[in-house]
């Protein structure tokens, strides 16, 4: 479904992603692991077009020079220079890190905005799905999203991404800062989302909570891919174990 080859991303002269190649197959759940500032966000932003957007913006005003090279193929098309919107239309949806929601809007307005590019009828169906997936949101529909707890915000953020109708859902540290119970909820929801035909890539610093559900994982250090394997393979590796599973 997605093939990334020799991807490099520079901010000015600092290398954030180094000669990265990987693939995602249809229907998989892929883990992207790495410590803080390893390059997880940069990778996901590059896939979703945000880095490209930032690059164009900075270029116009002569700010930070961002360089992206290599290739990204999605469903056999080169999407390297597409705008974020075009990628959204192709079904690549990013759920950004730190549970982003539109604070001044209600939960339902947030969810509906997720379907900004879709028809009213389709949005309705997706809303239904989101409320089934996260029943606590039903009661919070009319609440301002800015007032929600971290876990509730994450449900809204994921819900918003779902209403955008992803084929490939990129989740950036969805578990960060959540209670163990909420983490389990998000993990459960991820499996449910996959069941509906969505391919998922999720990044995390700590691999343990999502290890049981991933098909494969990629471990990144300083922008470089250092290890690949199935969940069990990664778990069994002593180095990986101490670095990414905590003790």
């Amino acid at each position, binding site marked *: 479904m997605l093939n990334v080859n020799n991807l490099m991303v520079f901010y000015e002269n600092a290398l954030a992603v180094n000669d990265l190649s990987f693939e995602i197959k249809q229907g998989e759940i892929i883990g992207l692991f790495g410590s803080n500032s390893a390059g997880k*966000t940069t990778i996901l*932003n590059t896939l*979703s*077009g*945000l*880095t490209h*957007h*930032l690059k164009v*913006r900075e270029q*116009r*005003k002569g*700010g930070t020079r961002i360089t992206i090279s290599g290739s990204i193929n999605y469903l056999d098309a080169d999407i390297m220079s597409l*705008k*974020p*919107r075009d990628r*959204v*239309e192709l079904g690549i*949806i*990013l*759920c*950004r890190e730190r549970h*982003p*929601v*539109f*604070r*001044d*809007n209600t939960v339902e*307005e947030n969810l*509906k*905005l*997720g379907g*900004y*590019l879709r028809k009213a009828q389709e949005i309705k169906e997706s809303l239904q799905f989101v409320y089934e997936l996260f029943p606590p949101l039903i009661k919070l529909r009319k609440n301002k999203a800015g007032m929600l707890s971290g876990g509730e915000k994450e449900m809204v953020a994921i819900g*918003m*991404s779902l209403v*955008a109708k992803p084929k490939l859902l990129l989740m950036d540290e969805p578990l960060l800062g959540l209670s163990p119970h909420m983490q389990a909820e998000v993990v459960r929801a991820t499996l449910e989302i996959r069941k509906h035909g969505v391919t998922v890539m999720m990044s995390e610093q700590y691999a343990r909570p999502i290890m049981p559900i991933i098909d494969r994982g990629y471990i990144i250090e300083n922008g470089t891919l250092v290890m690949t394997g199935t969940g069990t393979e990664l778990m069994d590796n002593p180095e990986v174990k101490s670095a990414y599973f905590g003790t």
Partner: protein
Amino acid sequence: MVTNFLIYGLVNSAILMLSAIGFSLTFGLSGVANFAHGAMYLTAGFIAWMLINYLGLSPLVAMLLTVVLMGILGALIYRIILMPVRGIVLSEVISTFALGVALIEFFRWKGFTSFDFSLPPFVKGSIEIFGVTIDYQRLIIIGIALIIALFLWYFTHYTNTGLALRGMAQDEYTALSIGIESDWAAMLSLGLGAALASVAAVAILPLGIISINLGYEIFLIALAVSVLGGLESTLGLFVGSLILGYAMVIASTYLGPQWGQVVYLGAIVIVLAIKPSGLFGKYKELEERV
């Protein structure tokens, strides 16, 4: 006397609100402080005048057409002069300021300086309310201010486009990640702002003549109202307009007409010195960049 004060204070507040709303909306939605706002107002006045006097259009048609044309001009201004410097606040200010001065001085140079330039009121005549005589145009201004406020509230809370614009204003990268485009949003914000400046122009200008200096004055009024109420706060826009509107009427009644201006210029300085975020402004939380 009291009713006179109440009614004319209200009219004045509505005038201030209409004058400021385009500036405030553009700033709230796109973060661009459009220093050409007053020039947009003036340009709208002259365009409407030319459509009526050169093309012979009926005033109502001319005014509607003016609003549409100015909306397009606002969008073009974003596309042509603001897009390249988007995100560099100082450059945004410099380019809109330069454009504003250029437009205003262009009209001065072309001789739009006599007393011949005025727009017709929507309805001629006046009416007596509670013993105060007031012309229909001033009542219409209050009505238009209310309608515009209601329309904008509906637009930003119940329409897809309005919600998307607000989303973009709150969190650009999240908006981008669900397919909203930032240049499109900013273009629309500038266009809407210019269209609103034109609505203000065609509603308010019939009260007097179109004088070149309005290009500067209207911008200063918009700035005063927005700074007092808090930039990007809708409630602030209302309250700021009411406070300044009544303060100006008090000042010009008791101190003399020239004091009206001192009030709003003074307000800018005082508010910035005491509470820079304005009455209802909130400091934006520091958000980390992508």
